[in-house]
């Protein structure tokens, strides 16, 4: 019994020798010549962002002007880089249904934009955490080209790139 007790005490004291584990493979004990060490604390912040796009816009006879916004938040970029958001329209800013169509206009931050190509509507530079653009959709609902009743639609694509 005494032997067992002695063994347990030996193991206990052996394990309780003061030692500090630092970086991989580096151990400081009371017998070490140097009693200091270094550890590295780090975090790799990845490039991320959150973008909120307008889901849909529905005109009516009583609502011919609609305001929406595009927001970019929680932006983390590499130093010196820029986040750009472009807008393009599937039907060149025209709501279509079969052969019929109804035109509409889009102002970005209250300025007209070209309808024939992609257009940059928002730029967020590194260091900035957010940005937004105001989108004003309007139409005079001239229905002379709308041959038939039904839903006339267009689809917008927002392209995000980091340059």
């Amino acid at each position, binding site marked *: 019994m005494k032997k067992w007790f002695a063994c347990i005490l030996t193991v206990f004291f052996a394990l309780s020798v003061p030692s500090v584990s630092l970086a991989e493979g580096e151990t400081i004990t009371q017998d070490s010549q140097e009693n200091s060490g270094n550890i590295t604390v780090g975090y790799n912040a*990845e*490039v*991320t*962002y*959150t*973008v*909120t*796009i*307008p*889901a*849909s816009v529905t005109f009516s006879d009583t609502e011919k002007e609609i305001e*929406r*916004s*595009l*927001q970019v938040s929680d932006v983390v*970029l590499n130093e010196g880089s820029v986040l750009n958001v472009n807008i393009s329209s599937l039907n060149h800013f025209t709501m279509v249904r079969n052969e019929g169509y109804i035109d509409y206009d889009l102002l970005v931050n209250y300025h007209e934009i070209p309808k024939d190509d992609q257009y940059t509507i928002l730029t967020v530079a590194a260091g900035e955490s957010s940005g937004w653009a105001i989108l004003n959709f309007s139409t005079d609902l001239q229905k002379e080209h709308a041959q038939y009743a039904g839903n006339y639609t267009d*689809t*917008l*694509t*927002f*392209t*995000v*790139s*980091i340059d």
Partner: protein
Amino acid sequence: MTDSGICSGIGQKGKPMKGKRQKDKGRKGKRIVFLLLLVLLLLGTAAGISLMRHSRGSGNASAPVKRPGGGVALVIDPDAESGLSYQDEAVLEQGVVIAGRDSMTIAADTKKVKADFRNPEENAKLYYLTFELRLCGNGSQDYEVLYTSGLVEPGKRIDRITLSRELEQGVYEAVVHVQPYCMNEERTPTNNIDMRIKLIVG
């Protein structure tokens, strides 16, 4: 056997008639007890069904609440919530929330790779998302589809995908095309987003 036959038999004999009456009383008692048990069983079943209906959906939120002064307080109807979501202008103004990044790192020479395609919880009850990984070609409209997801519910993500083909080691220009769909019966597609990324294969 007829009723008259039973009556005539009882009338002719004295003591047996008394015994029969007691037996009838006993039978009646048993019937009453049986009926009472049946009624209790039915009431219990009805109460159980009623409780189950009230506890479904948003808990007891849909149950009418009695006010101390009498009358019933108005509560939100859980069925009306989803039907109104897509027509409510305030909700539509919220838009679709999409998480983006500038790169995606995958393993070379294998079709099964890690990914991180997620639908943020902010889109809850509003939008499903689908993800398409496109490898850019030479022209601006030229691309090859490497992967297409199904509908991803809000708060969920895809972390493993199977590509249409293996890629060699290198850095490729790619686009993650995200197409949201309204969570209505028609699953109407909305405006969408293209996120240009570096596809790092190593």
